[in-house]
């Protein structure tokens, strides 16, 4: 299980939070998604064999939110 922390641009609407959360949770191998609205951070645990961290970052980017940085802990 790896752990990724993404720093996003400011989130302004609580519904963005639901969108990001829902989208990431539907990715295979992703467990435990936590979107921190005020800190504009996403913390997630995922299975390295099923999905890569840059795929997760792409999901968020596709939703229209810039990912400033992503930290991954194995």
């Amino acid at each position, binding site marked *: 299980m790896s752990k990724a922390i993404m720093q996003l641009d400011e989130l*302004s609407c*609580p*519904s963005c939070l639901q969108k990001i959360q*829902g989208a990431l949770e539907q990715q295979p191998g992703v467990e435990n998604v936590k979107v921190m*609205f005020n800190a504009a951070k996403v913390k997630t645990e995922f299975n390295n064999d099923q999905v890569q961290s840059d795929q997760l970052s792409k999901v968020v980017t596709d939703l229209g939110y*810039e990912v400033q940085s992503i930290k991954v802990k194995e």
Partner: protein
Amino acid sequence: MMKFITKHSNQITGVTGALIVLGFMGRLIKVEPVEIAAFAVASVIAAVPIILRAWSALKYKTISIELLVSIAVIGAFAIGEFEESAVVTFLFLFGSYLENKTLKKTRNSIKSLTEMAPTTALVVSEDGSVEEEDVDFVDVDDVVLVKTGAQVPVDGEIVSGHGNLNEASITGESKLVSKGIDDEVFSGTILDNGSIKVRATKVGEDTTFGKIIDLVEEAQDTKSTAEKFIDQFAKYYTPGVLVIALIVGLITRDFRLAITVLVLGCPGALVIGAPVSNVAGIGNAAKNGVLIKGGEVMNVFSKVDTLLFDKTGTITKGETRVAASLDVEPKSEYLPLLARVESESDHPLGMAIVSYADDSDVNYHDLPLHDIDTVKGKGIKAEVDGRQVLIGSRSLLADAGIELTTDQADYLSSLHEKGNSSVLMAINGRLAAILGVADIIRPDVKETLKKLKQLGIKQTVMLTGDNEKTARAVANQVGIDEVQAQLLPEDKVEVVKKLQAEGKTVAFIGDGINDSPSLTTADIGIAMGTGTDVAIDTSDIVLMTSSYDELYHGFAVSKKTVLNTKENIVIAIGTVAFLLMGLIAGFIYMASGMFVHEASILVVIFNAMRLIKFNTKPKQVDEKLTDINSISEPIK
């Protein structure tokens, strides 16, 4: 495409606004083609980002507010209501822009904290060369160089050099601390002078400073029950509005009414009202040295009516010192002998006496010491420098046939009444001195307790393992209502449970590992920041500098925040009710509905922003603010 639009949404809003003005001007000068064209173009331009966002969310099976607006706008456009569609889209975009701006302000207090975090480190490689690296790439056991004025980037031990450090970001104390080889340094502290090399033991988010930031960030997103309810509600509410609009449309056969319901139904102020108050309140508290772990904690804390205090380390500083003495023999005569014997002991009273002797520059280390004999529960007998010495309680001296005069006995009982522990000393069968040893009471305890009572605290109780007499004396000095002495940690938990069973909402304030069970059991556990890590982890609230001002501020800001949240919920529900009535009465349409919505969102944000400036002690808060500013300057 998506990125481009997100980046330029401000420009899009601007262009739409200009087109709408042009449209109204067209109407004013009665040139219908200009009017229609301007509104139509504005609708299309402004609708694109909204529809795209709605679509991307829909792809992940989420029904968003944007979807409601999109359908309404497309509908209005289809029936030729270009003015309505243009104004609705513009207000929606412009509203999000303003929300963004104002929300940023409510989050600023946390930003100023995270910006204090170090970003780069000078890593010393094995051949001695130094390279600047991003702090994320520093590993445990790397050696980093810290120069004068720079920030320590890791938690670690000094391997060479020494200097004075400003540890205000961790301890809240701005006094400089001198440190040398093998001493521990913390990430986020600033080297005021000197130059040190530090071997990293903890990096990044594992450092103490990283943990503090993490704690505050998590706290702001830890939802209260009310928020969780609203979140859950919003999840079904948004699709619900879609269904209701459909039903309304089918029954009334009024397409315009159906799409108006879509716009009016947007969950706006309700979703944002509660979280925005909590963010501002928690941010305010953090800035004033109080870490509150989430909105629910604030909620419960505001209802607390009973405060339980641990004594040592909480009411008092947990540092004993000699507070008074009656010198029968000159101090220079008895103190060296006394200190020599006590230097062999690790009893707290003994340590207080030794540091008293050290402070008085008494030389005692080389005195010959023989025949030490501990008399259980009474004291010590010994021979120092050829003289027979008795150190301990009154009964130890009485056993040896040494009686006190009336004056001496009065002095002794006055010491006890003030909460001091006493040490008597006799040399060669005659009383030499009576010393009072006291634990220092933290500043401002009495005043703070008084002010807390004005805010609604009904009862204060001190729980301590110490003896009844000392405990009562301390309690009397600070004005605590009730004392329960000679308690074991599990007895303290029982007291908490008993009070809870009586229907009281209890906060426990403590500092040690032994307090952890009580901290968890109480409705609210409050830890002294200078206490143990365990206490800080198990608590709900941490007072960073262990000051009573912080306790008061935390309580006051929690009450204010809860009130603010309620105000916001009332505003939000009031808005929805107003819109519904307006719709039925027929004076609210799509554009005016959107306007009221966006306005109500801004009202709740502005209401929450009042919390940012809330303070209980104007002067002191200002000093702390400048402190933070002066720290963050060198980093920028």
